[in-house]
């Protein structure tokens, strides 16, 4: 096996993108260096393997950091979509509560139902608050979103207790949505590492 072919095999330890971008240039450089080397073959190969080993580790670290950033960016987009959905559901809940409140004023609803409607309206407003905070995306807004989501969840649970015949869909949205958003908000994610040329 020729030295150049062995070096091409050694290049396989680098990430594929780096290899496809610089593999040819590195092989050319290796060929020149091998031809003009001033040490014996063993010392030369030791230096080549050492160079490949420590530079490949550094390249792989760069790849993993880039993947971490990409993962974080994807999560941020998901959180923006979740924020929009929370605002829409909150508006729907608040409008629905308003409509039921109008019905209550006509005297067609019982007192327990009126309490549940008021709680549902409050939960809707809290979901709008949480959704708006998620859309802002700042650390303080995330804190606001967490508080609003927990409050919304507690209010819906109280409404469920005072109004046991709450529909399955209302329960699913009212309890499931804040829970899902809280999990997504506090799911561990990669940190943004800044890189330098060094």
């Amino acid at each position, binding site marked *: 096996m020729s030295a150049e072919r062995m070096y091409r095999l050694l290049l396989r330890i*680098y990430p594929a993108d*780096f290899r496809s*971008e*610089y593999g040819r*240039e*590195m092989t*050319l*450089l*290796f060929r*020149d*260096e091998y031809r003009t080397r001033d040490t014996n073959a063993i010392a030369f190969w030791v*230096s*080549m393997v*050492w*160079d*490949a080993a*420590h*530079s*490949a580790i*550094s*390249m792989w670290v*760069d790849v993993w950091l880039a993947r971490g950033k990409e993962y974080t960016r994807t999560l941020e987009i998901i959180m923006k979509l979740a924020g929009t959905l929370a605002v829409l559901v909150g508006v729907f809940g608040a409008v629905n509560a308003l409509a039921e409140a109008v019905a209550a004023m006509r005297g067609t609803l019982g007192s327990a139902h009126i309490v549940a409607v008021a709680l549902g309206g409050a939960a809707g407003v809290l979901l709008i608050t949480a959704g708006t905070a998620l859309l802002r995306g700042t650390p303080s807004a995330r804190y606001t979103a967490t508080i609003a989501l927990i409050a919304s969840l507690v209010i819906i649970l109280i409404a469920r207790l005072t109004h046991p015949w709450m529909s399955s869909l209302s329960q699913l949205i009212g309890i499931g949505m804040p829970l899902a958003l809280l999990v997504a908000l506090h799911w561990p994610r990669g940190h943004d590492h800044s*890189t*330098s*040329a*060094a």
Partner: protein
Amino acid sequence: MAKKQRTAGTPESQLPLAPATFQILLALADGERHGYAIMKEVTSRTKGAVRVGPGTLYGALKRLLESGVVEEGSERTDPELGDDRRRYYRLTKFGLRVARLEARRLDAMVRAARQKKLIGTAPA
């Protein structure tokens, strides 16, 4: 064809440079060079004390390209090295500012070492 590169932040944000990276910038300070020419220039200037292998060299060049410190020049053959076309690299204006800032930083450190009498007043 030279690729348009983006700069990453301010020149100061690139500092301090790794020793091998600064050696590469010094090699490119005279004009554009291909990888082997950079490697030879570093070895000869440091009298063999610093040797930059292919992985270290292209790893550093990749980062320097991404941060806009270095850009690719034309791809052409080097008559002294045969018929293979080689990529040439050169410093950008941003890269020149980074290299100057790093040189000043190192110079300040050497002056401080002289004041503390760690080294003599004449260059070592």
